[in-house]
Structure formats: C-alpha cells, structure tokens
C-alpha cells in the first residue's frame, strides 16, 4: 500500500533523512521510533507530500507522491505533529471543511462526520470553538480530520503526544483497530506504544534505519534476551556458572546461555540443578529482552550533536 524507496532529504548541508526504505501493507501498524531529531517527522512530511524529497520515491497505492500528488494524497489521512487546526472554527465547522476538501458532500458527508465524531468521542464539543478546547480534544479533532474520508493509509505523527494516560490508552486501541483494515504508520518516542499497538517497528537514528522488525524481534536484540533470572534461597553463583555467564541483578542471579535460543533447555537445567542442590526457588523468569535497552544501545543519546 505504502512503499518508500531510498528516501533522502537534505536541508543545506544537513542530511535529515538519509536513504530510508520500507513498505507498509494493509493490516499492518508500523511504529516509527527514534530519538528527537532523528528524521521521523521529516520522513512523514515527505510521505504525505508536504516536503518534496531530495531523493528517492514514495508511492501510495501505486501513485507516486511527486508525480501524481492528488491521487496519492486522496488515499492518505494525516495527523501532523502537534495536531494543527484552525482555532477560530468550531469542531463541527472544521470537520465539515475537512470532509468537503476530501470531496464529500450531502448525506455521505453527514455520515462520515457522524462516524469520526463517535470514533474520536467529540460529540460533547461539536459546537465549541477549537481555541477553547483542551489539548486532548484538539488532538482528537485533528485525528478526526485525518479519518473523515476513511483513508487506506494513515500517517500519524506522534498521535499520543499531549494526551493523558486514559486518552493514550484509547488512542492506542483505536490505532490497533484501524490497523486491521488500513496501512498505518505512526511515530512515537514512547516505547510501550510499540507493544501496545504495532505489528512492526522501525527504529531510525540520524536519518537512517537502524532496526526493523516485530516488537518481539526487536526485543530479542536486547542484551538480556534469552537469559533466565533466578531468585532462590541457597543458590550459588559458582554452580550456575557451568550453565552460562552469570550476573547479579538486584539481588537475583541472571544466567545468560551461550545460545540465546536455548532458553527452554536452560530453564530445565536450572530446575534440575536446584532440585539436586536443594535450593528453594522463589522466582524464576525468562527474559524476553527490553525495548528501551535496545533503543539506548542502537541510537545515540543526543542526535543534535552531529
């Protein structure tokens, strides 16, 4: 549905996006991760046709965003960063305008607006002027605008930014639901959102893709992935060392097997050992790895220093 090939964007001498390629199909939710200034927004602006790319291609449903922008833009719903909207309009007026701009009219327009109002829970503020709304409502108004024409591709730049925890939960649920029938790309720097909403995630840093995979695959890149953490009375570090490298983590013992995929064998070996030695196991946990650890390891802490 959405194909990005070798996308490049330079501002003066600075390469903001440096050769990014990926595809998103219908039914996929792609999380776009990266530190601030990594090029997330710039990439999204190129996908949606706001910035002309310096190099590379974006095709949306087979339409090139540069060569046939109108056809491509019709397929996209876009929530820009900071969710801009016209503050002097009412929510209803703004949505009617957005629907009209999408070519909707009459009964179809009414239905489309009713649908997004329900989806984004805007019925309480429909007649209110946008500049009197809280940040959460403003955000949802702009999201409703992106959904009004039921687009096949959704591009959301930090859709949960500025929302309270309940609203964040709602937004993630909505993204997951929308992802069943649409191709969704959303950017975030909140790692839990990857687990909560994505089928796949890409981590970018300084304009390049540094990791690409399902949330589980990304977690597996973590240092601790595949290890087993054990809390047991009487456990001896020296005896565990026969099974793999051992480290102490917050009073527990963590065993890293030589082969990361041999976690199940390791668990069995530890249980056998504990039974033989008479250790009292209080807690035994297999580590799936942690996204934030992966994120920290593969991205530089401050991308502003280049």
């Amino acid at each position, binding site marked *: 549905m959405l194909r990005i090939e070798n996308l490049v964007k330079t501002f003066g001498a600075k390469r903001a996006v440096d050769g990014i390629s990926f595809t998103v199909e219908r039914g996929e939710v792609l999380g776009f991760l990266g530190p601030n200034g990594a090029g997330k927004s710039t990439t999204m602006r190129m996908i949606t*046709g706001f910035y002309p790319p310096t190099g590379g291609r974006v095709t949306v449903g087979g339409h090139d965003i540069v060569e046939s922008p109108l056809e491509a*833009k019709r397929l996209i719903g876009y929530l820009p960063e900071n969710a801009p*909207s016209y503050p*002097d309009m009412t929510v209803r007026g703004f949505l009617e305008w957005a629907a*009209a*701009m*999408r070519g909707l009219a009459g009964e179809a327009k009414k239905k489309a607006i009713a649908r997004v109002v329900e989806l984004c829970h805007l019925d309480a503020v429909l007649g209110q002027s946008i500049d009197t709304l809280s940040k959460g409502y403003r955000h949802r108004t702009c999201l409703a605008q992106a959904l009004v024409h039921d687009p096949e591709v959704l591009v959301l730049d930090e859709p949960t930014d500025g929302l309270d925890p309940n609203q964040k939960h709602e937004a993630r649920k909505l993204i997951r639901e929308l992802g069943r029938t649409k191709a969704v790309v959303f950017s975030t720097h909140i790692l839990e959102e990857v687990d909560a909403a994505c089928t796949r995630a890409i981590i970018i840093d300084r304009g390049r893709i540094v990791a690409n995979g399902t949330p589980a695959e990304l977690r597996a890149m973590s240092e601790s992935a595949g290890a087993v953490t054990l809390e047991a009375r009487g456990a001896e570090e020296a005896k565990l060392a026969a099974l793999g490298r051992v480290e102490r983590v917050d009073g527990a013992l963590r065993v890293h097997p030589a082969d990361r995929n041999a976690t199940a064998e390791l668990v069995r070996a530890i249980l056998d050992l504990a039974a033989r030695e008479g250790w009292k196991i209080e807690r035994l946990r297999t580590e799936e790895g942690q996204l934030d650890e992966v994120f920290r390891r593969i991205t530089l802490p401050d991308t502003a220093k280049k």
Partner: protein
Amino acid sequence: MRAVWIIARRELGSYFSSPLAYVFLVIFLLLVGFFTFTAGAFFERGEASLAPFFSWHPWLYLVLVPAAGMRLWSEERRAGTLELLLTLPVTPAQAIAGKFLASWLFLAIALALTFPVVVTVNVLGDPDNGAIAAAYLGSLLLSGAYLAIACMTSALTRSQVVAFILAVVICLFLVLAGFSPVTDLLVRWAPPALVDTVAAFSVITHFDAFQKGVVDSRDFLFFASVIGFALFATAVILRGHRAG
C-alpha cells in the same frame, strides 16, 4: 474549482469570525468618509463627480489592504495548518487562489459598502455613472494588486508585522513611481523615456485611467499581471520553504 471555493469559503468565514473584519470595515468606511468629504472637499467643489472619493484609494489601500492580507500565509505557517492544508488533495495553486479570492471578496464587500457616496452624488447632481462604475472596477483591481503583494510578503515570514511592513513598502513604491511630485523630480534629470518607463510601473498611472472612466485593456492587463506575478511568487516562496 470546487476546492478553490471550499478554501475561499473557510478563509472568508475566518475574517468574520474574528473582530478583524468589523474593525477593518468600520475604519475603512470612516477614513473613506473623512477623505472624501473633509480632505477631498466633496461638497465645496460643486461637481457631480466622485473624483474626491476615488483619488484617495491608492493611499488608503496602502495601509488597509496589507493589514487585511498580512495573515493569509504567515498565520498558516505559524499555526502549522499549512502542513494540513497542503497535504490535502489540492494543488498549491488552488490553495493560493482560494485564499486570495476570499480576501479579495472581503475587500470587495468593503468597497461595496461605500455605495452611499454613489447615492449622494446621484441625489445632488447628475454624474456620469458609467465613469463611476469604471472607477469602482479600477479600485477593485487596485486592491487586488496590493492584496496579491501582501499575500506574497506573508508567505515570506511567520510574522504578520514583518509581512505588513514589507507589503506597505512594495506598494508604496508602486504608488510613488507615478505620483506627480516624484515624477516631476525625475523629469529634471532623467530622459523622458525613463520617466515614462518608471511611471508605467505605477498603480497611479493605471488607476487614473479608470477614474476618468476609461477602461483600457492595457490598464486591465497591468493589474492582472501584478496579481499574477505576485501570486506566482507566492507559490515559489511556499515551495521554497518546503524544498529546504
């Protein structure tokens, strides 16, 4: 065309949803009244003509039209709605045309509200209403030319104040190039061909013809090309921001 109209309708709505429109209309009508009847000595002249009314328009518009046009693009850029607008399925040309036409329509409404002077002059005497119609057309084109320039300067910057000042300066140049105290000064040392060339760039020279009731295609073309050029420049500037 539909997209242009939808954008224009929203833009026009945003004029009237803020106090700007009403403040503008009141100030415009007050100033028009003052210049026509007091400074222009409308009654004392004893002529059934609207010359004292129209001759002030290039000066009045100089301040008021940039004020009406300065927010067109700078506000969209400042609020980030430019990104929203240009990622909708519209071409930049449609967006520029829609916003320009909305503001122009607003200025046309302001101009139309001056109809009492036409009524007055018709009650008091027997004016050449054809000439008045031509002058109104000229005035509308004049405001369109100023507005297109304000549109261009507002695309240059996020600051409405900067956009306003730049527009006033450019429009002032277009006025002064044909203003007789300035051309008289030029005549002393410059060859007449140069003076004429400079004067040909002035809105005054072209607006004068309309005031006399002459609708010449060359004057029409002048205003159309100023509008066309300024709007084209707007498109180039807007693209320039995004091209990086």
